[in-house]
């Protein structure tokens, strides 16, 4: 085996046990180095797999099997089911939203912030923009840049619809943003408030964006900023 063949075989499958027997001493050093490096790289990259992933996949299988057995109209009921399981998987329990009387964006957004903000504040950490954009891509949206720190970005259940929950930390406090699919069965309400929080909803082509905060100064500028920075990814 000449040098070119050796390199080709080595790069093609460094773990091939036959390599060692077909080469001389100098080539053995290359094999040893590359195998050792790969072994260390593999060990370092074997991150723990979240145990809830398997549960999610098996739940999804049950849903898909049921969908295949049912007429198409039945699948609408399963969409609510899988969204609920996603919310459960990320640790958000939000029983207050199960109340059937709450049927508009404002009520859901306010109830969600009141219920979740104390827990969310303990989970804040800077979120890279490309990771946030990967989640926004589910709504065909992206942020080209954003001047405020995004400290929380997780999918959540919004009346049975998978929505994105973002939290920005500004110099004055926190601003919560929900990205809710345009086809969510929730009435659009542009301006709303409760004794503590207030909010503004924006209607985009692919989603409704709800901005909520208890800092009036942020509410006066953030909706326009979000509208300016959010663009369509498709």
């Amino acid at each position, binding site marked *: 085996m000449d*040098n*070119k063949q*050796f*390199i*080709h075989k*080595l*790069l*093609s*499958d*460094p773990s091939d046990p036959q390599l060692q027997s077909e080469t001389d001493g*100098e*080539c053995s*050093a*290359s094999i040893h*180095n*590359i195998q*050792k*490096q*790969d072994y*260390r*790289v*593999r*060990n*370092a*990259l*074997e*991150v723990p*797999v*979240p145990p*809830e*992933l*398997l549960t*999610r*996949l*098996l739940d*999804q*299988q049950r849903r*898909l*099997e049921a969908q295949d057995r049912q007429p198409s109209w039945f699948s609408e009921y399963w969409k609510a089911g899988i969204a609920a399981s996603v919310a459960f*998987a*990320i640790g958000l329990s939000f029983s207050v939203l199960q109340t059937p009387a709450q049927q508009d964006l404002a009520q859901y957004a306010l109830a969600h912030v009141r219920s979740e903000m104390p827990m969310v504040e303990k989970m804040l950490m800077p979120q*890279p923009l*490309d*990771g946030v*954009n*990967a*989640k926004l*891509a*589910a709504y065909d949206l*992206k942020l080209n840049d954003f001047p405020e720190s995004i400290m929380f970005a*997780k*999918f959540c259940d919004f009346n049975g619809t998978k929505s994105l929950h973002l939290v920005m930390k500004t110099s004055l406090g926190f601003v919560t943003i929900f990205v809710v699919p345009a086809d969510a069965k929730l009435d659009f309400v542009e301006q709303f408030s409760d004794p503590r929080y207030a909010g503004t909803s924006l209607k985009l082509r692919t989603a409704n964006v709800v901005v909520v905060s208890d800092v009036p100064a942020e509410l006066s500028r953030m909706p326009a900023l979000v509208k300016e920075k959010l663009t369509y*990814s498709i």
Partner: protein
Amino acid sequence: MVNAQVLSFREPKNVRYQRLILVYHTDLYRFAYWLCRDSDLAQDLVQDTYERAWKSLDALEDLNAAKGWLFTILRRENARRFDKKQFKYEDTELDEIMDDELAGPEQDFSDAQVREAISALPDEYREPLLMQVLGGFVSDEIAEQLELNINTVNTRLFRARAYLRRFFIAGKGD
């Protein structure tokens, strides 16, 4: 790659599918994690991958190709989410690779250094390296999945490893 006992066409679809979940979800999650470096997103990618796999499972004609098929679905889903362009640039051919670069002095490095180096690796080098080191694919399988010729894949695998070695030596990449 795949043990033929993992799947059998004689088994019902739901049994075959569940085997694919049990056998490959760990590899797929880790591959997804190192592509996007976000646990929530990696889980979503794996879930979306398996949802697409369910819809197309009957079209999977070669059971031994199941793992590569799942990796390909995941890569495409990741590219769609990140709106990534296909890699388009010239690679030098394998002839230019010097064997002595592979036989250099041994390096020692920590898990944290490896993770930092992998994160810093350009996508076009990280992806084939992850497929080989984590996925266990040989370069002709990677070439098929990435729709590249095998010399290009080998060149990228070489460069990825050389980049890591330089990173470990210098404490950072080029």
